[in-house]
């Protein structure tokens, strides 16, 4: 039962974050690229303000899978790196925390480009 409630909050919070972006795309002239950038930067700011942490505790993947979660990782990474290594963490924290995702995206995309052909749109 508890598991079902967790998955329900994952679904609802994840869905809401996507719906907000959909409204922004439909109602303003915000391009998808700008939405992605806004979500990542928004995630950093909300985490810094102490707002996003509780959302992650509550909604888990519903908050970490959307790109605001990427911003959350950047912010948590920079905090951790500063706590452990001091001032140099300001520069290293963001990339360290997101390195797996970025490296995976680049490498998988490279391999995909070798295997697959561009499809006519």
């Amino acid at each position, binding site marked *: 039962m508890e598991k079902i409630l967790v998955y329900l909050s994952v679904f609802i919070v994840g869905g809401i974050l996507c719906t907000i*972006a959909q409204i922004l795309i439909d109602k303003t002239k915000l391009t998808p690229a700008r939405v992605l950038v806004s979500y990542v930067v928004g995630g950093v700011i909300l985490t810094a303000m102490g707002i996003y942490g509780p959302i992650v505790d509550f909604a888990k993947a519903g908050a970490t899978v959307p*790109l605001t979660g*990427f911003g959350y990782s*950047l912010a948590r990474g920079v905090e951790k790196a500063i706590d452990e290594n001091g001032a140099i963490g300001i520069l290293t924290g963001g990339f360290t925390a997101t390195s797996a995702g970025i490296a995976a995206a680049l490498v*998988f995309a490279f391999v995909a480009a070798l295997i697959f052909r561009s499809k006519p749109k």
Partner: protein
Amino acid sequence: MKVDEKYEKFASEHAAKSPLGKDCFFAFTVGGFICVLGQAFSDIYTLLGVNEETVKALVPVSLIFLSVLLTGIGVFDKIAKFAGAGTLVPITGFANAVAAPAIDNKAEGYVMGLGAKIFIIAGPVIMYGILASVIYGGIYYIAGLIPI
């Protein structure tokens, strides 16, 4: 008519065709479903005894792998067409924005084609994400120096 105006007209005509309610419904359900999939990956890896830090990295990596694969076989675009922000906002949208230009621009060469265009969306995302994290890091560091 200037190019900008033409584009505005084109854009507004096409925007009118996509009703907000339907768009939001698909964005909500598909986006929610992708997050549930992420949570399922997380729970499965945890059950398999993978440590917490590794799980945190493996979940996005798994979703990125699926997105790149679906982009390659041409399925991602079909889902994204009706899901809109539902596939864009989760990490799947980031992965698609890396894979699609890599595949589409390979013909222009491996360096300035694939190599450069792979960052066409990922570049701004990483650029402003890192900028925000460094600014926050600076504030966090200075705040930590002030004795309470």
